[in-house]
């Protein structure tokens, strides 16, 4: 990650942490709404790579605040949701690893049991897949000047892939946490409930599967590979 983006993320973490208790004001004041606005127009001149990084943080710290809507226009909200979801999934995994390394049963940490290890490996694969989808989508959007039509294939594929990961990620995370994860007090539901919500917003599985499936049917069998490798 570039030094500039690293700084942006540090700022985002600090501002979103404050916003978590007081609402949108600190986010508005810090100018996150200007992230994508070009420098000559008084903005920060950021790209979607920056947006991806910032939204992954907001997906963890302030999942209920309209940060994505502040930064990007309506046509880019499905792409924004992928970043929010990637962030929340990464945090679900981190919480789960921490929990199984500390919680002891049968005289050892849960993480030493092979069944638990294998479940978390499955979950980690899904999380890495969605993080990759978010990163590749960002690269595509930046390559086409944030034109959602030119990135239609990637938006559909990434949102659909993210939607399909939610089931495994939330169920494994809750399973390895046991009852504590089902309490209001514990942090896990603060990322898993938003994940369930985002799966249905800006296009659920059926919506994107139809769009992508029909687009690919138009390519034809060989055409799919040609399209994949041409983009």
């Amino acid at each position: 990650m570039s030094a500039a983006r690293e700084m942006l993320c540090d700022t985002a973490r600090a501002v979103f942490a404050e916003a978590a208790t007081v609402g949108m004001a600190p986010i508005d004041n810090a100018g996150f709404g200007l992230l994508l606005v070009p420098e000559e127009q008084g903005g920060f001149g950021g790209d979607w790579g920056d947006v991806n990084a910032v939204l992954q943080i907001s997906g963890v710290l302030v999942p209920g605040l309209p940060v994505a809507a502040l930064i990007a226009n309506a046509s880019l909200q499905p792409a924004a949701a992928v970043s929010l979801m990637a962030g929340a999934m990464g945090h679900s995994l981190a919480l789960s690893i921490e929990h199984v390394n500390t919680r002891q049963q049968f005289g050892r940490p849960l993480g030493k049991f092979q069944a638990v290890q294998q479940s978390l490996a499955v979950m980690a694969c899904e999380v890495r897949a969605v993080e990759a989808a978010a990163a590749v989508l960002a690269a595509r959007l930046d390559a086409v000047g944030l034109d959602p039509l030119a990135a239609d294939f990637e938006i559909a594929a990434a949102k659909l892939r993210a939607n399909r990961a939610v089931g495994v990620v939330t169920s494994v995370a809750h399973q390895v946490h046991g009852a504590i994860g089902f309490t209001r007090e514990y942090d896990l539901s603060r990322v898993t409930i938003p994940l369930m919500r985002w799966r249905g917003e800006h296009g659920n599985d059926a919506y994107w599967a139809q769009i992508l499936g029909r687009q690919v049917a138009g390519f034809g069998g060989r055409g799919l590979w040609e399209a994949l490798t041409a983009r």
Partner: protein
Amino acid sequence: MQGFALYPFDPPGDIAALRAELRAWLAVNQPQGDIVARANCWASFDADFSRALGAAGYVGMTLPTRYGGGDRHPLERYVVIEELLAAGAPVGAHWIADRQTGPLILRYGSEEQRQRYLPGIAKGELFACIGLSEPGAGSDLAAVRTTARETAEGWRINGQKIWTTGAHFSHIMLALVRTEDGSERNAGLSQLLIDLDTPGITIRPIIDMAGHHDFNEVFFDDVLVPHGALVGTRGQGWQQVTAELGLERSGPERYLSSHALLAALIDAAGADPDPAVAALIGELTAELWTLRQLSMSTAAKLAAGEDPMVEASVVKELGNAFEQDMPRRVQAIVTSGWDDADDLARLLRALLIASPSFSLRGGTREVIRGIIARGLGLR
């Protein structure tokens, strides 16, 4: 395991031209025989095709020119192999030699071994097999018991390998053997490069559940190979094999084995597909796109000299699940009968039968998940 950082897949040279040249070459040279050979095509053996591919410069691409290679960048090779797999070309005969034996000889082999074997590998004429598994050593590879004792004349090998893909048509085997008397587990192992026409070697076919002769049992009865058969450092076999497995796990063959079926499904669906079929095509495409990006990023990381053990395992785990589940998901929505003669039905049947092997070969699903769990800090 840190969060995922995308490595830019940025090969040198004109990649679009490389793809176009290869596609044009395949249009002329890919055998037009049975469509079923396009399924799981890195287990389709065709020595003539391998030789032609080698002559065209598409085998041993990354080996230095002084050994007959193409001196190309690893990511150029990646582009070529993903094109070959997507086209369903019968690359099985030279696959192992090109993917791992050649690079391993270059990295650990003696000058004599390099000169002796690499030119044939790069020509697509010299085929290799992997001698790791034994009856008592499957997932638990450190239980290897085949021994090689050093004598005045050379190494004396006794023991047995099993599940050795392609041993019956290969010229050489890179075998993991126990060279240190009384050694245990992963200590005392070495790699030997064995010419398979050496006296005392018996190769017996094992017919797989598809009725194919792909893998074999290989017996070593007091087999004498020269001192120069040792690859790399005596006693370092385990470390060398671990590096070899890294080359094996993240390539495009880990998610493209069923690609011919996806292409056939799309073609059968037509431009205005039934909604259920469209939905499945959409889902499979989303997974395919993601896997390709993960695999390319991992390849780029490998090419940059890093050791992405965990990422490589993520690619294998997700890729194997994708290519293994695809036939089942396709069967669930199409009307093809088991014995139908159309392309879709025949590919479907062939891949349903082949698919149990996808999460066994190259390390089982459970072993791969164990590696990922270690990367997560759980083991």
